[in-house]
């Protein structure tokens, strides 16, 4: 399990300010143990991070109701991302889209290849509670769009944390049936992985955590690299 042994990477506010100054195009704040622990993301953290950010800010972690989402948005998030709670109760996607608009509603999908098929996993923030949801990834991608998702973040678990590149085949398969923005997640380890995922899988965004936290890849250098390869990026 690539999610084991989460590392504390330093002050969240300092990290957020660093990414803001380095030219990150969006910040996603995942409280990944919130759902398995049956709680929801800490509002005071959201408020403090939002206070320093001038880029889009998406928050995930145990958001189970319209009221949960409303308080997260009121604390300064621009979008909410739901994963396990959407699997437990898919109607939540529609409720959130009706209240806040689909542009506010991101659905995160943790997917892994199992016997040659893409399968959705749940509670991936806790290795001991992680379990197969019983859903195929492609059918879930179709379903969440029908329900009102405005964006999909596909986290390819076989790749996650191993830094060998995004799962291009899986992302391309999802791209083919995804009409809303698709964000790639899991596997980024080198600048060429970002170039590959934009050109091969035609995703709208690429998400990474560990390589940025550890400064293995710096965002300004990554953007210069992508620009040199003809991929449009914000300077």
């Amino acid at each position: 399990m690539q999610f084991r042994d989460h590392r504390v990477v330093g002050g969240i506010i300092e990290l957020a300010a660093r990414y803001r100054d380095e030219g990150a195009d969006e910040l996603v704040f995942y409280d990944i143990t919130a759902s398995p622990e049956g709680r929801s993301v800490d509002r005071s953290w959201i408020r403090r991070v939002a206070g320093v950010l001038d880029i889009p800010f998406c928050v995930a972690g145990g958001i189970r109701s319209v009221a949960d989402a409303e308080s997260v948005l009121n604390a300064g998030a621009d979008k909410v991302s739901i994963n396990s709670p959407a699997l437990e109760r898919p109607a939540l996607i529609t409720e959130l889209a009706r209240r806040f608009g689909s542009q506010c509603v991101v659905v995160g999908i943790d997917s892994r290849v199992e016997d040659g098929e893409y399968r959705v996993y749940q509670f991936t923030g806790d290795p001991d509670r992680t379990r197969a949801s019983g859903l195929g990834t492609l059918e879930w991608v179709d379903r969440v769009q029908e329900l009102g998702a405005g964006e999909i973040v596909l986290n390819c678990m076989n790749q996650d944390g191993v830094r060998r590149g995004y799962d291009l085949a899986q992302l391309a398969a999802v791209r083919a049936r995804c009409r809303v923005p698709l964000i790639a997640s899991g596997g980024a380890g080198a600048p060429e992985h970002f170039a590959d995922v934009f050109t091969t899988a035609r995703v709208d965004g690429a998400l990474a955590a560990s390589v940025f936290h550890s400064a293995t890849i710096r965002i300004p250098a990554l953007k210069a690299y992508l620009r040199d390869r003809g991929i449009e990026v914000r300077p």
Partner: protein
Amino acid sequence: MSQVAIVDGGGANIASLMFALERLGHEGVLTTDAGVIRAAPRVILPGVGAARAAMERLAAHGLDRLLPTLTQPVLGICLGLQLLFEGSEEDDARCLGIIPGTVRRLEASPDRPVPHMGWNQLTVTRPVPLLAGIASGTHMYFVHSYAADVGAATVATTDYGRPFTAVLAHRNFQACQFHPERSGPAGARVLANFLAT
């Protein structure tokens, strides 16, 4: 520190705008009170959500009649830009009618998902104080499914399947389709320009 009245159209995520004003040394006051809005030196009409719901909320407080009569600088943001027009295709909403024209839905295509969500470039078509220091090619952050056609009030455009109004200026009313509070230093500059008018 001067106060900016932020018209409460019912959108949930006003906090990011409040924080942005704070960073620029201004205080945003979220309100539906006609007296507060009329007396404010500057007014911001924000809004994420649906046009009809926002108009119903404004009408409930008599603001659908008040807003067109304002004479101080007014800045519409995102849905706030769209509400300045006569109407929107979104739920066939009747809007404030300050600027002629109807807001139309963006057309999705396989490589162009709707909502349009992300960073996109401006083309400045008329230099106005609101765009001081903002050159064509500057990236701003957009989140929308509807857009206003390019017209007499347009001062900057963006292309997403078709060119649309990214920034407009019409009398004391100015507006941007993108979110300046979430568009990095360039967005902060637009807000600072508005606060300096």
